[in-house]
């Protein structure tokens, strides 16, 4: 059985853009409040008071449009992956579509699959464009993730996102998809019930059967189908809930650390959930050379992984300069203490 996902037409990325809010809180500061020592990361990004998943999506989408240099009205679908929807019912995607001037001739919807909603939207965009139904489709992954105060998720749950515009492969394509593969199983490692503020998770159960099994299976499945070995890739970006997990995946697959580090930002911005691999890939596209092959594997609790193989094209050199780079946002930072962080996260009842 052929397992590779590949559309009839060759498609690729014509524009990408990232966004990370400027506020940070150090793990040390969170640990001070809850009496914890030994931290998964150094610091994480925090949304401003006036930022949510929608505003993060808007700025990422605008950056993607700057690089794509297309009329936003030519985007025929805008799919937004998030697990921090500002509205429980009412699409976030329509707000973003309106804000970038893409309305009204398009399809729009919100996707949810824990941390892999962004790549889920991307799979759909590849299909929409690759079938010939649409000239361009935009996939966004963004979150202002929730972690219960004092829970170990609070040390990593952060804010950020990235947007990708998919189009048919031409000389304007800055990187094209060789193929993709999705792997999902019903594995309840992390969930949030309706009307609950915070997610719950299966502690150690989130590692082996969930994260590692799905990511490694998806990566291996894609490589088998494309007949590639780990050495065929110049970069690899894996879902990054912390620093240790993606580096362990690299070790299991036999991919050297050096190929993973350029797209591994979780140590300094945290886990942006639906945005995580999308922001990591945007950091890689900011520095990759034409001809480079990139392995991209997301993970979403629940659980599953999407794996993509990307080849960078010549257009990257010119287009990456058309919008702020990922590190421009990562390096722009202001530290918050826990009291201000709590205000930014909307914890005070007025």
């Amino acid at each position: 059985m052929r397992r590779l996902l590949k559309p009839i037409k060759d498609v690729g990325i014509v524009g990408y853009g990232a966004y990370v809010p400027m506020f940070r809180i150090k793990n040390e500061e969170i640990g001070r409040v809850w009496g914890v020592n030994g931290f998964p990361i150094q610091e994480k990004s925090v949304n401003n008071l006036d930022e949510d998943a929608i505003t993060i999506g808007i700025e990422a989408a605008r950056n993607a449009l700057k690089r794509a240099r297309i009329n936003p009205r030519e985007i025929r679908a805008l799919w937004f992956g998030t697990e921090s929807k500002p509205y429980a019912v009412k699409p976030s995607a329509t707000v973003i579509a309106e804000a970038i001037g893409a309305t009204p001739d398009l399809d729009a919807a919100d996707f949810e699959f824990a941390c892999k909603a962004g790549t889920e939207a991307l799979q759909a965009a590849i299909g929409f464009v690759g079938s010939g139904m649409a000239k361009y489709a935009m996939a966004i992954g963004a979150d202002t993730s929730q972690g219960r105060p004092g829970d170990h998720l609070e040390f990593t749950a952060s804010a950020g996102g990235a947007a990708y515009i998919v189009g048919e492969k031409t000389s304007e394509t800055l990187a094209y998809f060789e193929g993709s593969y999705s792997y999902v199983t019903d594995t309840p490692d992390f969930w949030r019930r309706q009307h609950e503020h915070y997610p719950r998770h299966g502690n150690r159960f989130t590692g082996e059967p969930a994260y590692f099994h799905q990511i490694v299976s998806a990566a291996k499945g894609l490589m088998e189908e494309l007949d590639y070995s780990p050495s065929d890739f110049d970069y690899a970006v894996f879902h990054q809930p912390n620093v240790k997990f993606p580096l362990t995946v690299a070790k299991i697959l036999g991919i050297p650390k050096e190929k993973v580090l350029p797209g591994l930002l979780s140590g300094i911005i945290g886990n942006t959930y639906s945005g995580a691999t999308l922001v990591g890939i945007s950091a890689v596209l900011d520095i990759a050379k034409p001809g480079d092959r990139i392995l991209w594997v997301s993970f979403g609790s629940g659980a599953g992984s999407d794996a993509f193989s990307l080849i960078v094209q010549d257009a990257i050199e010119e287009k990456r300069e058309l919008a702020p780079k990922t590190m421009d946002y990562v390096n722009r930072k202001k530290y918050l203490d826990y009291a201000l962080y709590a205000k930014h996260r909307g914890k005070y009842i007025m």
Partner: protein
Amino acid sequence: MGRPMQVSRYWRHFKEKYRLIGGKCKNCGHVHFPKRPVCPECGGKDIEDFQFSGKGKVVSWTIVRNPPSGYEYYKPYPIALVELEEGPVVLAQLTDVDPEEIDFGMEVEMVTRKVREFEEDGIILYGYKFRPPIK
């Protein structure tokens, strides 16, 4: 406050609030914000949509410490008169900036941010604000 009856009042202005779209007189070329049905310069009535670049400079500013109802959670926050590079001056909040970093003539760019929420169960209003440019 902010009950469904009021939604249309805000919805009518989404284009202007989300994207900073104003008007340009087809007769004399004057650009203005927000868009008006009659040109304030020549009285012409043929006005088309005009997309402002979002780049501008701070003309003057103040810090709001006693905000109007609905904005309490955001205090203290700066509001400024921003002169857009195309000419019009708009009143808007500044964001991602500390009060001591703000100065006369400071360059800013437009971003779309959350302006306010109407209670727990009301709509969320998004609109233009300005911040120091990323690059």
